[in-house]
Structures are given as structure tokens and as C-alpha cells.
């Protein structure tokens, strides 16, 4: 019997796991947690995306896990390298909330959660990966955990509400 490891990724990071291990990320606000997995191979990758587009970067090296447009492609590569089959990949996503409901933060950054979700979906569509389930938007933070064996994404909010998608 092997010991189950919960691999934890932080903000603007990504990682891939194989069953029985699980992968989680904590405190998603406007960020989006995107999971790409092949359930037949029990392999899954997760990215904690902060911003919609790498064109928003102000020069320097780009951390591909940070931007929706670069993270999806890089994540697919990671999952395939770990044994995932391209045609069998599915996606689940959570996050993209609006944590503060005022406009003083500058119009550009206010809708960032929704824009992150839009761009992640656009990228998944580009690579023909169906979104099987999602829990996005709203005004709550989320902690998510994905089980590659079952394909279940557990989502917990600050009020300890638990749901599985």
C-alpha cells in the first residue's frame, strides 16, 4: 500500500500528480485553479493562474503558470509527459471570484476573476479539451483538491461549505 501524498501548489505555480496522490491549492480568490486530467491513466495537472494574458507582463522572464494563455498549454504538456493521452484529456476549473466589490481598485483589475475564467476556457477550447465541471465566480475564496483516481474536484470555502464537482 502506498502512502497518499497531497501535493500542494502555491499562487502562480503548477504541478502534475498520479494516483493515489492528490493535488491541491489554497485560497483561490480572483485566481483560477485549472485541472487537466486523464482519468484512464489517473494523472492530473493543476495550475494556480493569476492573470489572463502574458501580454500583461512588463518584460522579463515569463512564469508560464501565472498567465491563463500560457498555463493551459504548459499544463497539457506536463500531463502528457506524465502519461496522459491527448485525446482523453478533460478539464475542471474553480475560482475567478470578485473578492472586493468596489471600483476604487481600478477598472482594469476589477473584473480580473471573470477575465481569468474566460481566458482559461478560450485556451481549453483551442486545444479541444472539454470542461466537464466548474465552480467559478461569486465573492468567495476557495480551496480545491483534485483526485486523479476518481476525477473528483473538492471545493471548500471560508464558511466551511464543501462541495464536489
Amino acid at each position, binding site marked *: 500500500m502506498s502512502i497518499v501524498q497531497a501535493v500542494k*501548489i*502555491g*499562487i*502562480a*505555480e503548477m504541478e502534475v500528480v498520479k494516483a493515489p496522490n492528490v493535488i491541491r491549492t*489554497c*485560497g*483561490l*480568490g*480572483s*485566481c483560477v485553479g485549472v485541472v487537466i486530467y486523464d482519468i484512464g491513466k489517473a494523472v492530473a495537472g493543476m495550475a494556480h493562474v*493569476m*492573470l489572463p494574458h502574458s501580454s*500583461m*507582463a*512588463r518584460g*522579463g522572464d515569463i*512564469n508560464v503558470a*501565472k498567465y491563463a494563455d500560457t498555463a493551459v498549454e504548459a499544463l497539457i504538456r506536463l500531463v502528457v509527459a506524465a502519461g496522459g493521452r491527448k485525446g482523453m484529456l478533460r478539464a475542471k476549473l474553480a475560482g475567478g*471570484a470578485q*473578492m*472586493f*466589490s*468596489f471600483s*476604487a*481598485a*481600478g477598472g482594469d*483589475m476589477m473584473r*480580473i476573476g471573470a477575465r481569468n475564467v474566460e481566458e482559461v476556457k478560450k485556451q481549453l477550447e483551442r486545444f479541444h479539451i472539454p470542461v466537464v465541471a466548474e465552480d467559478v465566480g461569486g*465573492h*468567495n*475564496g*476557495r*480551496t480545491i483538491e483534485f483526485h486523479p483516481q476518481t476525477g473528483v474536484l473538492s471545493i471548500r470555502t*471560508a464558511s466551511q461549505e464543501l462541495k464536489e464537482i
Partner: protein
Amino acid sequence: MEDVRSLTGTHIDILREIGNIGAGNAATALSLLLNKKIEMSVPRVQIATFAEMMELIGGPEQVVACVYLRIEGDAPGNMFFVLPPEQAERFVRRMIGDDSFSFQDGADELGCSALQELGNILAGSYLSALADFTQLALHPSVPALAIDMLGAVLSFGLLELSRAGDYAILIDTAIYDERRPNESIDGHFFLLPDPESFSTIFRALGVSGR
């Protein structure tokens, strides 16, 4: 400032002094407001990746009460006043004179606006001390309130920074009740200047940006 890692010891000292002056003024304002003595810690200046930073200040999943303000003017940035929810409740009870107040009872408008106002007063005094010290014009936005996971609320303040790199410079000052110094620290001020603001602040204080 192109790379936050190129800061020298002098720069760090300046940032620490900013935390000192700002939070010192805010602690005084809070102690007048609540009519009790409030102490503050020596400021910490953290330079870390976003993920590391979340861990350093208590973990992204920890639930906090958070008042957020955007700083506009010569040196834009983000300011957070973060409290454990129970502590926020105690402050609100004292401010509105209702000992039964709880954030659990749904969105209480009076309680929320009291906490927002508290954040407003504290951040205002932090910033006015900072503005006096640097002779820069700094204006706080209307405060916004959230009670949620630390990672979820604080990541909003990292968005501007994250466009420039993967490191944040965080100026963290804690305040606590003098009579219970060994109990968990009551509140934190987090100042996260935008990347361009560092050179402005350093220049204003007569130190070159690099």
C-alpha cells in the same frame, strides 16, 4: 526598480522605517479610538515569491477579516489591514457598543461599515505619516472589506506586482494589545507598493533607486 532582489541594506532599512512611522501613527489612532493602549511590533520587510509570502504571513487558507485600500498618487500601491475575525468582532463590538455583534449572523451592515471605517482611519493615519515623511502625495481609496481566506484577499493586492515579476516586497507591521502581549498578535498592516513606486519612495528620501 527592475528587480526587487537588487535592493540594498539601506533600501530595506528605509522600507522598515516606513512601516515603523506608518504603523506607529495608526497604532496611536487605534488606541485613541478604542481608549486602550496599543503596541506595535518592529516592522518586517519580506522579499519573497508570492507563494512563500502567503506561507510567511500565516498560510493562504487562514480566514481573516481584511480591509483593503488602493493607494493613489505619487507612489501607488496596495494596503491591507488584516485581523483575525474574532478580533475584528471585538473591535466592532467596542465601536458600536453592542456586545452581541457577530459576523456569523449574516451581513450586518452596521458592523461591516464600522470595520470599514476602522480600516479607513488606520490606513489614513498610516498613509498620512508616510506622506509627511516622504513629502509625496498619497491618497487612499474608499476601503473595501472582505472576510475570507488570506490567499484569496491578498492575491488581489499582488496583481499589479505580478505583472512585473514573481517577487513581492511586503512591509508588515503587527499591532497588539499591551496587556496581553503574549497572546496572538491582533492585527497586521501590509503595505505592497507597486513596482514603480519603490524608486519614487527612495528618491523622495534622497537615496538612489538602485
